[in-house]
């Protein structure tokens, strides 16, 4: 209480940052795996699969992340799964990320020229090698800028985990601000840390995007 903003407080923020990075990493890896499944289901020949995953995407893109966190966090407890808080939050973020990444990658799979699919089929490649060796490598490359863009969104989105009592960077900032009574300083520092984390990613995304655009123009 009533301390000034010093190294100890900065250390506390860095503790929070660790959780921010960890949560985003788990969500990105989990969402990557889930998203791949969603993208493949969305582009499959089975109408039922397309419908189900379409609905899944619609729910997660049509509702606030904050509500997804609330419902999954409390809902898991209700169905008797008493997981640690961070696991519950990680599950919510993974489901969220799977929907968005799935939709991004579906878009890029469908953006590939039809000839690619036909050529791969003509070569006698079955579904698995066709997707693995021909379609996905190209599709994921086109999707790279949007994927990086979403990673940035995800990192920023972890700030909402604060609401279910999770002490990541944004929440740590609020607690420090309340101890030091220097909101202007503390929120500037917190903002700067997020910026330092996200900006390099955004820049990288832009570079990849212009490289792809140049390659396409040639």
């Amino acid at each position, binding site marked *: *209480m*009533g*301390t000034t903003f010093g190294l*100890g*407080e900065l*250390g*506390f923020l860095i*503790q929070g940052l660790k959780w921010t990075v960890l949560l985003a990493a788990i969500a990105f890896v989990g969402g990557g795996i889930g998203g791949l499944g969603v993208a493949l289901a969305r582009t499959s020949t089975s109408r039922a699969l397309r*419908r189900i995953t*379409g*609905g*899944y*995407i*619609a*729910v997660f*893109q*049509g509702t606030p992340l904050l509500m997804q966190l609330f419902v999954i*966090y*409390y809902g*898991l*407890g*209700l*169905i*008797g799964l*008493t997981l640690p*808080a961070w696991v*519950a939050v990680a599950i919510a973020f993974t489901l969220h990320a799977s929907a*968005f990444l799935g*939709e*991004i990658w579906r*878009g890029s799979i469908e953006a590939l020229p039809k000839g690619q699919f036909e050529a791969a089929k003509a070569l006698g490649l079955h579904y698995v090698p066709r997707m693995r060796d021909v379609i996905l490598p190209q599709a994921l490359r086109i999707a790279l*800028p*949007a994927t*990086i*863009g*979403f990673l*940035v*969104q995800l990192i920023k989105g972890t700030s909402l985990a604060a*609401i*279910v*009592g999770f*002490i990541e960077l944004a929440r*740590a900032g*609020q*607690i*420090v*601000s*309340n*101890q030091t*009574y220097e*909101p202007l300083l503390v929120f500037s520092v917190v903002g700067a840390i997020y910026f330092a984390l996200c900006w390099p990613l*955004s820049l990288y*995304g*832009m570079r990849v*995007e212009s490289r792809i655009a140049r390659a396409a123009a040639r």
Partner: protein
Amino acid sequence: MTDTPIFRPTRRSVLGAGLAALAAPALLTLPRDAAAQTVSDIKSKGKLVVGIQGDNAPWGFLNSQGVQEGFDADVAKLFGKQLGVPVEFMATAVANRIPALVTGRVDILFATMGMYPDRAKAIQFSKPYAANDIILVAAKGTAIATPADMKNFTIGVARSSAQDTAVTKVAPEGTTIRRFDDDAATIQALLSGQVQAVGANQFYPLRLNKSQPGAYERKLDFVRQYNGAGTRLGQKEWNEAVNAFIDTIKANGELAKIYQTWMGFTPPEFPTTLEGVPFTVG
């Protein structure tokens, strides 16, 4: 547009998803007896998960190293010691305390929970182990002498805290009440001038005056509330264990020691009954 994920769900899929989601609660009626908790459940689990406040010094707060401290933390640790299991703290925002308990996220609440009849319908209270005065705090010059004066100001409270209950009940019709997620945000709102007064506990003036000595004072007294530990409804054995623990620390002077550490005075007389709030499973 690297930052803009493709976002084009069709309207039809949104509609379909909505209808499917509407049907979901039907699948979700789950009387969950599995959560019936006993002391041996806790022991076999090997830890006691305690819901506590993370930003409300000296009741429950995280220090700069991120370690949970405070009055409630010490009481909870003592309980863990008696049970012979380590305590794991989960800092919950004020508004999330009861949800965290009833959905099974925590085993027990030592979270500055004022014992009120409406809350007693949602959770099982133990015997009281602390007292807390709920008051209104504002800067010295603020013209509030009676509850009626609140109408002229914007009042901040932590959402669904005891202060929220008290201010909402006493404030005259038409008073602007702003509700924030927790104590931290509420105090910030007062310091930054977004609100002119806040519903508070007895320690707010102390904390506020550390930043600006003598600037804030107690304006109105609402109630003296008693705090109890919270468990899920109907867990008879668990509730009895908690009550036995509270009786023990009251008798052996441990509670008085914790009181002295964090508040600098001795515990008050605790009531043996509270209107509408049973201490035991009936």
